[in-house]
């Protein structure tokens, strides 16, 4: 055999005897695993154990108007240990130090040796989900992740971190129902519900691995398919923590003192409709103890028969239609009359001695008979087809006051107002409907809707929408701004509004609420004592309870806040609006008044007169109209009225003289004492180049005044 052939035999032998067969075996094994054994491996495989899971986005905060947190999501972490994940080397290398760290900082009730033994036992018994620490804070989590072994990450150490978050309300039950909640299986409530999408952000997805399918234990996998959730935006509410605290406290004292069923109080900014405080307290019997709790948003969600507070709408309708004047007299029949054999009585003791009095007085003492007689007199004619006469006209007026439309406040579940259609059979309209409507029955409004109406009266007829949210923010930047919304530019004529305001003030000065008068400031409002669960008959009305209310605004002359207080079924210490709800209103108003500086009329609300000031410019040169405006505003006397636009103010003796300012065309003027804007205007118009140094007024100029100008550069030093 020659050499060449021997080599060839050998090399082909190697190729076909070793390499080709190995290739075939490897391919065969690959196909065998993929096809023959395939199903088995795929079943064992992770694809059955890996599924995309939703990752909840971090929910946005709800903030009070000053940025304090009303509701926020606090993350917490549950830490588990997969004792199998680490390699033998890593595990053994770090066992002692890890046990030491765990004993010192996490599992403090155990000894180092005990934990060391535990770790080994867990590993031997292939425990993959041992609880290490529940509800760890972010800082604790970070710290634990820095432990030996754990710092190698989830896959190499087996430390499993599950992130959760919970909603916290740092101010406890304050405005709880208004802030609300979103829970699985429950109707979303309050702002949380209304702004759920804004607050909620966008859910992300992440692949999760089932460690234990039977117990539904999943751990997150970090890989490329992770879609990060987008955090929710924050909302800034109109709620003022201090005012909320005041309102809630006062309401609580009242419901407790009167042992009421529920109470609500809303404080709103007159000009803007910002709800500054909103408190609800409902009675809860718990362990034979009575407590009051924010269990329902009565102010927004509960339609109530308002009772006497509604008389404001009645009398405004009468005034608007021109049927009456406040000084017209009315026979209130000593507070008792009947309509269609149903007896109507005044509840106020003032009425018993009075036959005839002025309409204003009848309103002050909240005479039911008076109001009912007026409406039945003027809206008597029955003609459903024509809404310019009769009850239909009255209903039309109420609708002009927006009393039939929900306010649209940003809280789910606002009650719809209920105002009967005139003569409607469906609404069971009867002969007694109109008189009883006039005193606030046979119709329903939520406390907030009624307040919105009172607020419109306080706001000179402009009805603004009550609102709770001013801004949506993302990382502290404004994303969306909600400005005050006007629901109705003018609910009634100026005359009617003025009279309505006069009446509301009179209620406090002379009427049902005279006891509430405050020495420090005036407020205006209307009391209400409504019957609840009543049954009317010819012998009078059988009553199941009362609902005391007070709606009004303060200060009376220049209203800043409007407020309504409704207390349902007071059982002790009085029932009347003036004794149950009125005092709450008064105390809220007084505390607001003391705590809110801006409500006090400043001692000096004009700028101080300028007597002497070294801040006065050495020389004032400027445009004539500007100059005059400033001098007028500052209330500085001056003389002279030059014919040119550019003027100079000179001190002549002890008075100021406004003189004509003229600059020779080709000479450098003096600009010392001028502001930069004026100096630049003058100099650049003359073709000079100007260099500026410093800031303030011109202190020096590099060209002497009077120099001939030939396009030089002039340097101004400002001070």
């Amino acid at each position, binding site marked *: 055999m020659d*050499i060449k052939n021997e080599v060839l035999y050998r090399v082909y032998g190697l*190729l076909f005897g070793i*390499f080709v067969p190995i290739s075939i075996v490897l391919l065969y094994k*690959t196909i065998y*695993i993929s096809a023959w054994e395939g199903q088995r*491996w795929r079943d*064992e495989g992770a694809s059955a154990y890996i599924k995309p899971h939703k990752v909840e986005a971090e929910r946005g905060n709800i903030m009070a108007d000053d940025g304090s947190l009303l509701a926020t999501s606090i993350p917490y972490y549950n830490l588990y240990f997969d004792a199998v994940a680490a390699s033998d080397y890593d595990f053994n290398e770090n066992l002692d130090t890890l046990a030491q760290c765990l004993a010192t900082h996490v599992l403090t009730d155990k000894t180092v040796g005990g934990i060391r033994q535990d770790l080994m036992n867990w590993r031997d018994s292939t425990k993959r989900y041992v609880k290490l620490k529940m509800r760890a804070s972010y800082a604790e989590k970070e710290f634990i992740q820095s432990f030996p072994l754990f710092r190698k990450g989830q896959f190499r150490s087996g430390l499993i971190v599950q992130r959760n978050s919970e909603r916290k309300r740092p101010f406890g039950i304050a405005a709880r129902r208004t802030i609300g909640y979103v829970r699985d299986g429950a109707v979303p409530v309050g702002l949380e519900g209304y702004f759920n999408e804004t607050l909620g952000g966008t859910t992300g997805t992440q692949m999760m691995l089932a460690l234990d399918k039977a117990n539904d234990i999943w751990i997150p996998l970090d890989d490329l398919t992770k879609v990060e959730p987008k955090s929710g935006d924050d909302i800034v509410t109109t709620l003022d923590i201090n005012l909320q605290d005041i309102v809630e406290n006062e309401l609580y004292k009242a419901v407790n003192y009167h042992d009421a069923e529920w109470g609500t109080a809303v404080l709103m900014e007159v000009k803007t409709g910002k709800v500054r405080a909103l408190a609800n307290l409902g009675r809860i019997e718990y362990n034979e103890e009575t407590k009051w709790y924010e269990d329902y948003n009565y102010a927004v969600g509960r339609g109530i028969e308002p009772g006497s507070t509604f008389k404001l709408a009645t009398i405004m309708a009468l005034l608007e239609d021109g049927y009456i004047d406040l000084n017209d007299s009315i026979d209130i029949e000593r507070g008792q009359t009947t309509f269609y054999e149903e007896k109507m009585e005044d509840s106020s003791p003032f009425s018993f001695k009075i036959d005839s009095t002025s309409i204003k007085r009848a309103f002050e003492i909240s005479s039911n008979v008076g109001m009912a007689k007026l409406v039945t007199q003027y809206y008597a004619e029955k003609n459903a087809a024509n809404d310019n006469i009769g009850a239909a006209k009255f209903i039309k007026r109420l609708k002009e006051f927006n009393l039939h439309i929900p306010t649209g406040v940003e809280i789910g579940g606002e009650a719809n107002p209920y105002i009967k259609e005139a003569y409607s059979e469906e609404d069971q309209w009867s002969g007694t409907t109109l008189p009883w409507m006039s005193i606030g029955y046979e119709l329903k409004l939520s406390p907030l809707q009624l307040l919105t109406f009172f607020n419109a009266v306080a706001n000179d007829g402009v009805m603004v929408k009550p609102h709770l949210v001013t801004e949506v923010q993302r990382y502290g930047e404004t994303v969306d701004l909600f400005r005050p919304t006007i629901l109705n530019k003018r609910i009634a004529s100026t005359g009617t509004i003025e009279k309505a305001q006069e009446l509301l003030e009179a209620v406090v000065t002379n009427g049902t609420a005279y006891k509430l008068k405050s020495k420090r400031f005036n407020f205006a409002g209307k009391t209400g004592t409504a019957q609840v669960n009543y049954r009317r008959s010819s012998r009078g009305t059988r009553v199941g309870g009362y609902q005391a209310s007070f709606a009004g605004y303060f200060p009376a002359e220049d209203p800043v806040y409007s407020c309504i207080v409704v207390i349902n079924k007071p059982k002790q210490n009085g029932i009347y609006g003036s004794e149950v709800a009125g005092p709450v209103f008064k105390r809220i108003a007084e505390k607001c008044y003391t705590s809110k500086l801006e409500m006090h009329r400043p001692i000096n609300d004009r700028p101080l007169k300028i007597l002497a000031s070294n801040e006065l410019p050495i020389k004032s040169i400027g445009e004539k109209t500007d100059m005059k405006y400033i001098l007028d505003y500052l209330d500085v006397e001056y003389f002279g009225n030059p014919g040119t636009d550019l003027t100079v103010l000179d001190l002549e003796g002890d008075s100021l003289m406004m003189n004509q300012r003229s600059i020779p065309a080709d000479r450098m003027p003096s600009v010392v004492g001028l502001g930069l804007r004026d100096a630049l205007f003058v100099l650049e118009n003359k073709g000079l180049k100007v260099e500026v140094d410093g800031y303030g007024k011109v202190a020096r100029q590099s060209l002497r005044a009077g120099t001939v100008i030939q396009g030089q550069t002039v340097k101004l030093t400002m001070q």
Partner: protein
Amino acid sequence: MSTIAARIYAELQGDKAIWAVLALLTVFSVLAVYSSTGTLAYRVKGGDTEAYLFKHGMILVGGLLLAYLSHLLHYKKYANAAPYLLALSIPLLMYTIGFGPEINEAKRWIQIPFVGITFQSSAFASIALVIYVARAISSKQDYIKDFQSAFIPIIVPILIVCGLIAPADLSTAAVLFFTCIFMMFIGRVALQYIFLLLFLGIALFSMLIALGEFFPETIRVKTWISRVIEFTSDPDGVYQVRQAKIAIANGEFFGLGPGNSIQRNFLPSPYSDFIYAIICEEYGVIGGIVVIGLYLLLMFRVTRLVTKSPKAFGAMLAIGLAVSMVLQAFFNIAVSVNLIPVTGLTLPMISMGGTSILFTCISFGMILSVSKYIESVANE
């Protein structure tokens, strides 16, 4: 485009099929490494997979450049350098055993002072030994079957180098040892001597095991034993191998598609030891066939070189380098399909890893240099 391609084509001398193998392996490398570094990137770089892709890409570009440069050089230059390279590699290996930093629980690396780059000294030694053996075999062809003057001078360096690599990296040593045996087989060394060498190798290995009792830190006898026990005790394979099998099974015939690997989350070092499984998962059995086919194609092309110039040093060098590369690839794949115990060998030209890719590229360059000259001679 076509002009650029044409210019590159013109620039590349030597066997175009081997160039194609190199190019395709590079493409696989980019795809598979990008897919499988996801978890590594998350663990180490906070999700920056591009960082790994970039680094790997730079290494590949550097490697291809090296391949190009080394293919320009006449292969006889390598022959001249062989004794010096071998002489250099022995102290390097000794230094590695003594002072090399421990990475992934084994001392296989040396750190180049000041630069901070680490590289596996065994890769360098392997190439040096293959060149040396090729030269020795070809220069002693006339008396190759002689024991004293041919066999002994060839096997002494083989035993020394393999013996120095084995303590920390048994599988590399084994690949190198078998490569040398195959080279000697092709180089017409008498079969009885080859069996003798095999026996010597086993004796050396036994000696290492015995020494391991005294130097457990240096000689990883424990690891070897535990891997063999793991392999034999569970027919389904250890955890990693089971995950690799799941990956292969997930891929079915056509694969899950690029970037869709699931098992990369579960396979330890999916970008090196088990990259074959990831390729099978994303590109299916088809992907596996292509990879194995590429290595086999390389063997065929190199065998063709030997048939053209059987006695030459060049042919012996080319076959030695190719055998070492393909053997390593087959070892790696065999681990993924659970035919042999876990070794830690990478898939040449595909797995992530600087030293491995750069030296593999140099190997390719030398093979191409050989093919270039053999073909020019054949053409004349």
